[in-house]
């Protein structure tokens, strides 16, 4: 083994807890080596360890939702075969986990932080909120969470319970909070509360709206992107996205240069 301290690990993590409600699952995995070096906004790539099938082939990427005492938690939605297979796993079974991967959020030194999440993009905001609070317990942290419907927000009940956080909700169908878009919440919150650092994770149209708003208001803004990934470690170059200046910079790679980018660095 090379003697440098490892920034990434591949390990066999036992599932300690798994629970699914509707199509939303929460899974807690024993992964001390990964937890030890993990930062908010990073992700892991997982595959059931006992799975000798090559179909589906790829590992699946998930954001770090929580990291406590060597246990890491992910929250995922069942959308296809990979997530369906994961949802069928049980406590005691073993997951092959690679991580932590990518570059996470830069914690801003601003006194005020707007965490803007949509749908499953809310997942990384829990660890982000805790990290900001740990760095500076005086920070004002406002989470603005949007989803299609209240059920989806329920998957993130623990985030809404964090005491150092102010939470506002928006749903497309009006079943919780503001009946409308999360960008509306951001505009109102900034208007009422003042400038701050913006962190955003969610569907592309949402993040684009957030980024354009921040550009207009000159607020520092980070967005967390998703692309299909094969390796997650910067080797295959499959996860390209256009940089802000396509001609000059060529492409950025979500798994290595991101998933979190300064909004100004990418093509909106």
């Amino acid at each position, binding site marked *: 083994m*090379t003697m440098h301290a490892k920034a990434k690990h*591949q390990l066999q993590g036992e599932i300690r807890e798994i629970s699914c409600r509707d199509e939303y699952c929460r899974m807690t995995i024993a992964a001390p080596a990964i937890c030890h070096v993990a930062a908010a906004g990073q992700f892991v790539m997982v595959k059931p360890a006992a799975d000798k099938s090559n179909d589906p*082939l790829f590992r699946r990427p998930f954001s770090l939702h929580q990291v406590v005492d060597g246990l890491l938690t992910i929250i995922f939605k069942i959308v296809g075969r990979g997530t369906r297979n994961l949802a069928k796993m049980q406590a005691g079974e073993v997951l092959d986990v690679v991580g932590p991967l990518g570059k996470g959020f830069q914690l801003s030194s601003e006194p005020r932080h707007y965490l803007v999440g949509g749908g499953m993009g809310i997942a990384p905001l829990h660890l982000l909120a805790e990290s900001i609070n740990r760095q500076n317990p005086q920070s004002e942290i406002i989470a603005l969470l949007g989803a299609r419907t209240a059920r989806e927000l329920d998957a993130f009940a623990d985030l809404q319970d964090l005491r150092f956080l102010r939470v506002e909700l928006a749903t497309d169908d009006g079943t919780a909070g503001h009946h409308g878009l999360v960008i509306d919440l951001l505009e109102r919150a900034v208007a009422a509360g003042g400038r701050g650092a913006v962190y955003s994770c969610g569907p592309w149209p949402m993040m684009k709206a957030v980024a354009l708003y921040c550009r207009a208001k000159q607020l520092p803004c980070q967005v967390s992107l998703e692309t299909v990934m094969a390796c997650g470690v910067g080797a295959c*170059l*499959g996860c*390209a*996205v256009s940089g802000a200046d396509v001609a000059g910079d060529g492409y950025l790679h979500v798994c290595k240069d991101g998933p979190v980018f300064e909004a100004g660095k990418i093509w909106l």
Partner: protein
Amino acid sequence: MVVNKPDLTVAIGDWQLANPIMTASGTFGYGAEFADFVNLNRLGAIVVKGVSVKPRIGNPPPRIVETACGMLNAIGLENPGIDKFLTEKMPQLQNFTCGVVVNILGDSLEEYCTLAERLKETAIAAIEVNISCPNVKKGGVAFGTDARMVYEVTRCVRERSNKPIIMKLSPNVTDIAAMAAAAEEGGASAVSLINTLLGMAIDIRTRRPKLANKVGGLSGPAIKPIALRMVWQVAQRVKVPVIGIGGISTVEDVVEFLLAGATAIQIGTANLINPGVAEELVDGLENYLLENKIAAVKELINGLLA
């Protein structure tokens, strides 16, 4: 009782490899990406991502698609170009004690020759020549699909280089053994095969190809039977060593390719799925030899019974 460690070494011409396990170009970055998962020095060799004369930004996304037991990629040979490669990537590659193979690609015969020339002063173990690229001067037909062009590229690279030359063959041909023979005639030290098979996938919702480039290269376990057949055919045709590539992810796969006539093998897509696989297969191959009381891996090469 003394248990002798089996002999894993293989040779490609004068080049001695500690073992037959190499990593395939484009699936292992420049090695460093896997340093946390694999002790690189335990590998037979690593082959770096293809390098061209000028930098290439590659194809627009989406670039990859998962398929049944495989994947399509249309990376578009993104790479920093030979200048940056030599100044930024080469120094760290020289820290590895395992062999480093540089994979090169060009749009014209001259580009291949230039790249061979530029790599002369480096301490690399070998050059691997990717001839699946379209020849812009010949209407975009891939170099690797025409025996005459295979011969010419090989000869030119051979003449301009002092390194072992591995010609990497395209499977998208009627007779891959003829391409291997052309490479041998041109002076190749070895041939490696297969590169990816041209494939396509369509998003029925948008009615557009899933890859921005429309078509891409198919790799992974799905293609293993095709790769194995081609390796077997080529090994019967040429005398130079054959390096087997295509869907390898287990020790059984490695042994199959060796039996079919491969002197060494490369692991491609499997690195992306399981970043520790390359070293696992070195260990696994050693155990396989031990368990089956085979003293040297060389005994497996071409060991297929009739």
